[in-house]
Every structure is written in structure tokens, then in C-alpha cells.
């Protein structure tokens, strides 16, 4: 076996162990108390999983993107909130890692992420932009002493209070248009987070994502030099949709596994008879299967396109439509699978304290269509489909 395959295997073995031994036993209390899954994140830090995707030259684990995606899936099977925190952190790290040209500050920063296992959150959505990540209101503003400062009103910042550093999207300058954006990485000791509102949602309760007013003063080199549109098209958008959909698939897969365990238990009680729920389980399988295929093929498309040094295909409309479609399809299908699993298990699935409970799975996956709203993505695809030819 090659070194990279060994690394991937070792990483996934460690993630599965954490998912089973740490994330699973804490998942109910994380959900009930809407508390940050600190045990999972500390265990991931202990395995240096927060820098797994980084190249070894930067002190990272040199793990493949496919293995990171599989890690999101494995954590998703045991605790949706832990998986979401892990995925969102990886999205920022992988995005920065892919755009390090002429950005020595960012190379040094990523080495610090590896060294100190720093957790990175993101401040992308903003009050007043209607959830459109392609526009910003808050601007990078030069100060008299050559620094850069900003103040951003964020309606949600996932694990904002628990992160070390923040990845912030902003307008390039006070006189820039809303679509002329940059990425700024602000360190914990440069940040001031003023909490706004509370966090008592239906699902993904452990992500602890209330609103904040985010203020920071940073050095000019903490503004990523790579063009924002390139970063979005080549990395941020596809990586986000792929890692999110892997963890949603993980949650849906565990709901399926619970439904199957329920059917097996009832089959054992009535040997020789196929229990009625077995037929519903077969229907459930047919709902899970296309979700699984879509998630896997999107990963393959992205990995293949990333092997081309120019990453040309990722900037095409065809690619934009493809990964947008993954997002809306997975976000629609994952809660459907969980609801059907509840239909298989009946009342023991509906109750929160049985081995067949799937309420948390259903609630967690219901967040999927809201995180970058499906309707907004459909709106984008609708306009792309007017012009793109071969989709």
C-alpha cells in the first residue's frame, strides 16, 4: 500500500473510534442541552484531525480529500453536530490551503493550525444580504496606522464562541461594490465577538450558532490575495457542498441502520414471517441509495477536476450547476430518508430514548435545506440553466 492510502486508513480508523467512543455517547446531551460537542472536538484535536487535510510540509496529516469527506460521513452517523463542526472547520482549512499563492502569512497560519490544533469558524452570512454569500456589506477599512479593521453583523456564526479564529467574507474596501469581496482570517486575540440573540433551534443544536457582531483589526497580509471568485468556484462552494452532503448522508445512513435494526428485531420475534415493516425498509433503502450515489459521484467529479493543475472545469457553469445540484438534492433527500426511517420504526422511532430513536436525525437533517437556502440555490441554477449548454 502507498503511504497516502495508509495515512487515509489510519485517519479513518481514528475518526471511527472517536465517533463510536466519544461522539455517540455524548450526542444526546449535546442535542438536549444545545451544547458544543467539546468532547468530540477535543478528541479530534488529540488525533491531530483538525490539520489532517493539510500537507505534511505544513505539519498536517497529508490525508486525501476523499478521506476527509469519509470522516464527515462517519462522524455524521454518530453525532450530526460534531460532524458539522468538523466539516465547517475543514472547509475553511481546505479552502485556504488550495489558494496559498503569494500568501506567506496564510502558509504560516496553517502551520499554526497544525501545531496548535486551532479551530476555525466562518463569518459568511450577514444581516442585510438576504443570505447571499456573493455580496457583503461590511468592508475592510484601512486604519491610520496601516492596519485593516472591520465590523460585521452576522445573524449566525456556527460555534462562534468556541472557535479560535474566524474566516470572514467582507467587501474589499469601503468604496467597493457589494460583490467585490475578499476573505480575511482574524485570529482569536484580534477578535471581539458581541453575542446577539439566543440559540435554541430545532436541530443541529450542538453547533451553537447564535448571531454576533464581529469586530477585528488585522494586518494587511491577513487578507487572502487570491481572487474571491476563484476561491469560491474552485474550492469554497464545492468543498462546502461535498462535506456537508457527506455528513447528511452519514446521519441518514444511521437512521436507516436503526430502522434495519428495528426490522431485524421484530423478524426474530416472529420467525418464518416477514414483518410488515420489512417492506417499508426496502422502500427506505430505495430512498437512501440515490442520495448515496449523488454524494459519491460529486466527490469523484471534484477530485478528478482538482487533479488538473489549472482546475479549469471548476470555474465553468457546468461545475457550478453540478455542485449546486448536489446541495439541493442531498438537503432534500436526507430528511426524507430520516422521516421514512421513523415510518419504519413507528412509535419507538418517534420516542427519544430507544435504540431506534430517529428524532434527532430528522431534526438535524431538516437544517440542510436552510444552510445556504435551497431556494436561493435553485434561483441561481435557474439562471445558469438559461445559458449553460451541456449540463
Amino acid at each position, binding site marked *: 500500500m502507498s503511504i497516502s492510502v495508509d495515512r487515509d486508513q489510519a485517519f479513518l480508523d481514528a475518526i471511527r473510534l472517536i465517533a463510536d467512543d466519544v461522539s455517540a455517547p455524548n450526542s444526546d446531551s449535546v442535542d438536549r442541552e444545545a451544547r458544543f460537542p467539546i468532547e468530540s472536538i477535543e478528541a479530534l484535536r488529540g488525533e491531530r484531525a483538525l490539520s489532517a487535510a493539510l500537507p505534511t510540509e505544513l505539519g498536517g496529516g497529508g490525508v486525501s480529500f476523499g478521506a476527509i469527506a469519509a470522516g464527515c460521513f462517519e462522524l455524521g452517523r454518530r453525532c450530526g453536530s460534531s460532524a458539522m463542526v468538523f466539516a465547517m472547520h475543514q472547509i475553511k482549512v481546505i479552502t485556504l490551503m488550495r489558494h496559498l499563492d503569494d500568501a506567506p502569512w496564510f502558509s504560516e497560519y496553517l502551520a499554526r493550525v497544525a501545531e496548535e490544533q486551532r479551530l476555525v469558524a466562518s463569518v459568511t452570512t450577514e444581516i442585510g444580504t438576504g443570505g447571499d454569500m456573493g455580496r457583503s456589506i461590511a468592508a475592510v477599512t484601512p486604519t491610520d496606522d496601516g492596519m485593516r479593521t472591520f465590523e460585521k453583523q452576522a445573524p449566525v456564526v456556527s460555534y462562534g464562541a468556541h472557535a479560535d479564529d474566524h474566516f470572514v467574507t467582507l467587501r474589499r474596501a469601503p468604496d467597493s*461594490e457589494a*460583490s467585490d469581496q475578499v476573505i480575511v482570517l482574524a485570529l482569536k486575540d484580534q477578535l471581539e465577538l458581541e453575542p446577539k440573540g439566543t440559540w435554541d433551534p430545532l436541530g443541529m443544536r450542538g453547533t451553537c450558532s447564535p448571531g454576533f457582531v464581529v469586530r477585528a483589526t488585522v494586518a494587511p497580509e491577513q487578507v487572502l490575495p487570491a481572487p474571491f*471568485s476563484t476561491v469560491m468556484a474552485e474550492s469554497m462552494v464545492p468543498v462546502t457542498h461535498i462535506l456537508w452532503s457527506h455528513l447528511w448522508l452519514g446521519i441518514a445512513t444511521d437512521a436507516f441502520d436503526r430502522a434495519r435494526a428495528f426490522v431485524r428485531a421484530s423478524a426474530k420475534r416472529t420467525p418464518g414471517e416477514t414483518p410488515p415493516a420489512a417492506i417499508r425498509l426496502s422502500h427506505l433503502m430505495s430512498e437512501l441509495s440515490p442520495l448515496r450515489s449523488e454524494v459519491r459521484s460529486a466527490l469523484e467529479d471534484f477530485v478528478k477536476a482538482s487533479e488538473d493543475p489549472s482546475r479549469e472545469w471548476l470555474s*465553468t457553469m457546468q461545475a457550478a450547476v453540478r455542485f449546486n445540484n448536489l446541495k439541493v438534492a442531498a438537503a432534500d433527500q436526507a430528511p426524507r430518508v430520516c422521516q421514512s426511517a421513523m415510518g419504519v420504526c413507528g412509535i419507538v422511532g418517534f420516542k427519544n430514548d430507544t435504540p431506534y430513536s430517529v428524532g434527532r436525525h430528522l431534526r438535524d437533517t431538516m437544517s440542510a435545506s436552510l444552510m445556504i437556502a435551497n431556494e436561493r440555490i435553485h434561483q441561481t441554477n435557474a*439562471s445558469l440553466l*438559461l*445559458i449553460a449548454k451541456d449540463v
Partner: protein
Amino acid sequence: MTAADDGNMTDQIRQIIRDHARLAGDVDALPADADLYSAGMTSHASVNVMLALEDHFDVEFPDRMLTRSVFESIASIEAALIELRSEAAVS
């Protein structure tokens, strides 16, 4: 030959930008190599620009040309249109 062949191509592109790109500033003052996205053209507006260009110049942009870099300035749009026309002339 179509009506679109008459007159200066740059001016015709500029008119389409004026009608469809929804820029905040004055399109006439915009240099041919200025970044239209930085000037405020959204992705949604860029699709309308592409549709209008296809209609006006009677061309179809193939998928490989449907990237941000092709539509980022009046000059890059003009280069793409010239390339499409020379391809059409050869075939």
C-alpha cells in the same frame, strides 16, 4: 452578415453592458479592461449579459467559454466573440 456586424463591436458590447449588467457607475467611463464584477456586476446580471450577447451577435457561447474570466471585461468579451466568429468562418 447580420445587423450586429455593422458598427463598432466594442460599442455594441458596451451598450449591452449598459442595458443588462446593472452597474452602479457610468458604463461610458469604464475602460475596456476594467473588471465588470468589481464594478458591481452580479452573477445573475452576468447571465443576462451573456443571453443578450448571444442574441445580439447571433452566437452561442460553448460551455468552455462560460467562465467568469471570459465575461470579466468588455475586452475579454470582445476577444471571445472574435474567437467564436473566426471558428464559425472556418467551419
